[in-house]
């Protein structure tokens, strides 16, 4: 197909718009990084200057060695990984069942799961607190794992179901004709094709749990089990806010999410099932 010569102004405008959007979206991240490397004494004097006159890694050192940051970080990692793993396993099972079987009460379960997504969190935070207290789980990481898992399962299930729906049912039938039990068909044929779905779900739940504040704030009081977003608040003291260290902690907090997505990114590429059918 012959393409008419593009209007250069139009092309320019397009790139300008993209550039504008990118700087708009990334500016807060830049600011985070900038303040984290600005020496303490310059933070207020240089205020809104785009570029600090001096840079230091001192804030990072202090955050890592002189505060409880590493413990918060570790707690967050445990909670987020556990919540993501448990949720994904349960959601994969439930999503597979919704996608492949018809069973009595199915519509009811789906309706209930949608229902749980309809209430603002603030409404249910008090009852949740009560339940967790009754279970004797206050101030424990397991309470957070439990709550995050429970709240993320509906969405994760629907997500996984849509991935299973995208895998032709003929593939399972073919595997069973080839001698697999249903479970073998699931493990040897369906599971490898669901890796992108599992990766996406894991990543989604991980980030959601990693940045959750509300429940973490309510259910955890002791410094020992604080997760990272709550721990950030310890940088706010009665009389001042330690911006430099707070921002340095923020930058460090980005690392796991980035690593996680770099790791699962290759599973997110589309097209794993191409070639299965006529195409």
């Amino acid at each position: 197909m012959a393409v008419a010569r593009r209007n250069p102004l139009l092309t320019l405008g397009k790139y300008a718009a993209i550039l504008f959007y990118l700087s708009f979206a990334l500016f807060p991240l830049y600011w985070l990084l900038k303040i984290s490397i600005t020496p303490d004494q310059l933070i207020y004097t240089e205020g809104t200057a785009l570029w600090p006159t001096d840079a230091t890694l001192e804030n990072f050192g202090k955050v890592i060695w002189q505060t409880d940051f590493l413990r918060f970080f570790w707690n967050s990692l445990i909670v987020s990984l556990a919540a993501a793993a448990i949720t994904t396993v349960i959601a994969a099972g439930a999503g597979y069942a919704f996608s492949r079987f018809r069973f009595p009460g199915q519509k009811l379960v789906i309706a209930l799961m949608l229902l749980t997504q309809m209430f603002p969190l603030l409404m249910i935070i008090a009852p949740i607190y009560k339940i967790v207290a009754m279970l004797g789980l206050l101030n424990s990481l397991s309470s957070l794992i439990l709550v995050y898992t429970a709240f993320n399962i509906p969405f994760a299930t629907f997500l996984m179901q849509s991935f299973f729906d995208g895998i032709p049912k003929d593939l399972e039938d073919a595997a069973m004709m080839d001698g697999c039990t249903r479970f073998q068909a699931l493990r040897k044929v369906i599971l490898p094709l669901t890796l992108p779905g599992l990766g996406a779900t894991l990543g989604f739940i991980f980030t959601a749990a990693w940045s959750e504040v509300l429940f973490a704030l309510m259910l955890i009081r002791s410094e020992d089990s604080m997760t990272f977003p709550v721990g950030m608040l310890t940088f706010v003291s009665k009389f001042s806010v330690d911006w430099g260290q707070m921002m340095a902690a923020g930058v460090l907090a980005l690392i796991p999410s980035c690593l996680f997505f770099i790791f699962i990114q290759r599973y997110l590429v589309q097209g794993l099932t191409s070639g299965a059918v006529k195409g």
Partner: protein
Amino acid sequence: MARLDLVGIEKRFGGVEVLRDVNLSIADGEFIVLVGPSGCGKSTLLRMIAGLEDISAGEFQIDGQRMNEVPPRDRDIAMVFQSYALYPHMDVARNMGFSMEIRGAEASARASRVAAAARTLGLDKLTARLPRALSGGQRQRVAMGRAIVREPRAFLFDEPLSNLDAALRVEMRLEIARLHQRLKATMVYVTHDQVEALTLADRIVVLNGGIVQQVGTPLDLYQTPANRFVAQFIGSPTMNILGVSRTDSGVRLANGAEIALPGLSGPVAELGIRPEHLDLADPATAPLTGTADVVEHLGSDTNVYVQVDGVGPLMVRQHGHVPLRAGDRLGLVLQPGQTHAFTADGRTVRA
């Protein structure tokens, strides 16, 4: 090698009856073709034989043993899917050897069987490729290879060629015919395609609305269809059907022409005549006269769509080239003994 018996098989999805009282005995090594319009239950019947679909009522037996509750993997039947259903994450060799892999066969045995099958199907150079890097025809071959490698008791095919272009379809049809001659395995084959059905089948099963209309050899179905549905479904171009009224010795057409049907008893409402059983004749003396509407010159044959005076449209097929043009007047005669008489509800009336 296996004998398959379907005894009073029924299938219901919820309240919807999809197959009713299917009785069929498939002999060891027989090639059975299931044909019928879309939605008549062909795939469902095949999947019940495979074990992928529950049997609502009746019994399915292999070599006399009840199979209703036996899972697919223990029936030792291979199936080629219309969608091919190749495992997209496995290369061609692993796709073909997967059944042996699952059954724990030795790697060397597997490799030699896969290599042999790949050679037969002309896939030897492609064994390391993933399905997505294959053409439609190659994928189809891999799907066949996957079935062959297993050396199963019976093969099931669900419209295996319907996604291929015409030339490839002819080629693969021959391939399947050769495969059947070589393996002498029992095969059940579902298709929409008349030519596939007539050329491949030992016997054809015609299904309509979940009910078996007729079972017979291709020639049986062509020459003595059990009812109007089979008469019109088998044979191409389709049989002409004319409304008639009964006389003492035969029937009278709408234009008044009388046709003798000796020995026929009972009511007759319609008369069927295949396009190849109508002959052109001198309009002055022929019982039917009309005007050529459309003429198709196929070289080997000439198809003429005729508007017959007082009767309506009829299709005529003449062998070889006939120099006719649209608008020409012509006369038609029915070849004696080639007509089919039907009652008002479509059953065949025989002499």
